[in-house]
């Protein structure tokens, strides 16, 4: 549905714009219908710039973005408006996305003014209520309130509801849950996943690998504006090949393993040294979460007079 073909972005920096900063260089990937692709990288890797270029918030230096086969940089007038109906974004900081002196529902009013001038008041409020219910909010609780009266999670859902009003095809979700609390994070993330069956594609921009794994089918790992690894999420996570991806994997704070253990596991894999089971590389039944790669199994008696050295068989 959306294809990025060798896109680059060069910013002019320095006092008189004399220096060039290559924020994104030669990035290509595509997003299919109803697919969630996560774009993972650390700050300064150009992930937000890519999102902005897709949303046409910033021009592309070179390359081409095609939406359903049409180059989006050529769109003008009515065609551009149609594109905005199809592609919308939600950004990191829900508190900064609103004008604090107006009520939060004003964002819906703008959409109505711009895209649905023909609807009557009753039709419109039915549509708004439908969108709010779709994102798990109870309309009477949240309508007619100022941004400071709503929580971060509610504001972020409001923004997703605004995007849904337009019946979009692609949502660019730029770090939408990094500002939220742990207790509301998962709900917003589940909400995104629940929108998939509607045929919505999502570009999920994040720096948190566990969130990327939770929601997406494919992942694109960016480093300094270049794609270093790309593919199905499971494959990348179970077998990170690029050293940078490995470093990222080792740095993610996780609850099941301490950093030292993760590093130890990766070191074994990186060096190809059999610190664990000697047959690990070719074994069809290795345990991903287990210890096959880190501990050499001892020879254990499986039945009387029959010894075997495999922790999968002996269950140790």
């Amino acid at each position, binding site marked *: 549905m959306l294809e990025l073909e060798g896109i680059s972005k060069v910013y002019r920096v320095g006092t008189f714009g004399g220096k060039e900063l290559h924020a994104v260089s030669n990035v290509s990937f595509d997003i299919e219908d109803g697919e969630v692709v996560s774009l993972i990288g*650390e*700050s300064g890797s150009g992930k937000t710039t890519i999102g902005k270029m897709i949303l046409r918030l910033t021009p592309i230096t070179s390359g081409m973005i095609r939406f359903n086969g049409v180059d989006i940089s050529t769109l003008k007038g009515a065609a551009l408006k149609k594109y905005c109906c199809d592609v919308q974004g939600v950004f990191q900081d829900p508190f900064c996305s609103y004008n604090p002196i107006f009520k939060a529902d004003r964002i819906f009013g703008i959409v109505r003014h711009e895209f649905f001038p023909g609807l009557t008041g009753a039709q419109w409020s039915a549509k708004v209520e439908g969108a709010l219910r779709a994102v798990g909010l109870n309309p009477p609780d949240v309508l007619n309130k100022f941004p400071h009266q709503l*929580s*971060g*999670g509610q504001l972020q859902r409001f923004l997703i509801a605004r995007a849904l009003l337009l019946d979009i095809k692609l949502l660019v979700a730029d770090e939408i849950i990094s500002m939220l*609390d*742990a*207790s*509301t*994070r*998962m*709900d917003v*993330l*589940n909400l995104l*996943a629940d929108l998939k069956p509607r045929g919505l594609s999502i570009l999920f921009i994040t*720096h*948190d*690998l*566990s*969130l990327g*794994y*939770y*929601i997406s089918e494919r992942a694109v790992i960016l480093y300094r504006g270049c794609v270093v690894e790309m593919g199905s*999420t499971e494959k990348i*996570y179970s077998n990170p090949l690029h050293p940078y991806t490995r*470093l*990222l*994997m*080792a*740095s*993610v*704070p*996780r*609850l*099941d393993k*301490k*950093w030292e253990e993760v590093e130890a596991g990766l070191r074994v894999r990186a060096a190809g040294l059999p610190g664990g089971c000697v047959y690990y590389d070719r074994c069809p039944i290795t345990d*991903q*979460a287990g210890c096959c790669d880190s501990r050499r199994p001892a020879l254990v008696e499986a039945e009387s007079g029959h010894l075997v050295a495999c922790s999968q068989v002996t269950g140790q």
Partner: protein
Amino acid sequence: MSLRVENLTVYYQTLKGDVRALERATFSIADGEIMGLAGESGCGKTTLGHSLVRLAPPMRFVEGRVTLDGEELPIWDTERMNDFRFKKISIIPQYAMNAMNPTRKIGRMAAELLRSRRVDFRAKLPELRSRLDLVNLSHDVLNMYPIELSGGMKQRMVMVLSTLLNPSLLIADEITSALDVSSQKAVAEMLVAFRDQGCCKSVMVITHDISILYQIADTILIMYAGQLAEKAATATIIHSPRHPYTRLLISSLPKVGVKQSERRLTGIPGSPPLLLDPPIGCRFRERCPVAFDRCTEVPPFTEIDRDHFVACWKAFEEHARA
């Protein structure tokens, strides 16, 4: 016993009345302990950290006693606290990115900081240099302005400055939240190195990211809506929590290797209560899946196992039965 806090209650004064941001907090941090302090935003964790360093309006001290190394801290008196601040108790602030004076070179700022505490900068310089080595910063940063440093470098520089006088207690307030994963890990590990090298005796790490705490903390204290919920060793909090809030909080964390299509994680329904007029009894009652009649009374923060403190009537019952 490095730090001991008893019954500490701090309110915020507003035009509408007192916001009860911290009520009857009682806990202690041992020498060499790294204690993590976790909870949702608005649960009072930053209030707790800041009240130990600088309790200034709109914060209002209501009651409580804080002792550090056997000496009582006059936390209600900002003037008298000057003798303790930076020397005995120090903080790495939440906004470390903007914590340094932009108009001074870093070395000069450090000199001014030390002079204000009547410490000779020249005598401290070798120490400062070795600390810079510890956090992987070049000695040249002392001749640079803060603007020349990246976010992670500034964070590390502030860590060095805060611990220069070897405080007994270091409070690290959300120091990793603005950084990306690789610098997060570096900064967190440096915090442990600081403790191991004796640059500070004990550390209180305030964060909302429990997975970071699992990596570095010895004990974790969970707060909810201004009250302490649970404190125990890290492994106990992660693997066998007793308070229903801790349980829900931990089960809602995303984990590597969990996919939405296979196992759906859920958040905690509802939102924390407003502390201007908090509900009576246990403040988690409204969102709690196991709440019962008894929960209209405030559960005391009680030690149910060795070094395992919980404030929940249900947990007491479960413990009595077991």
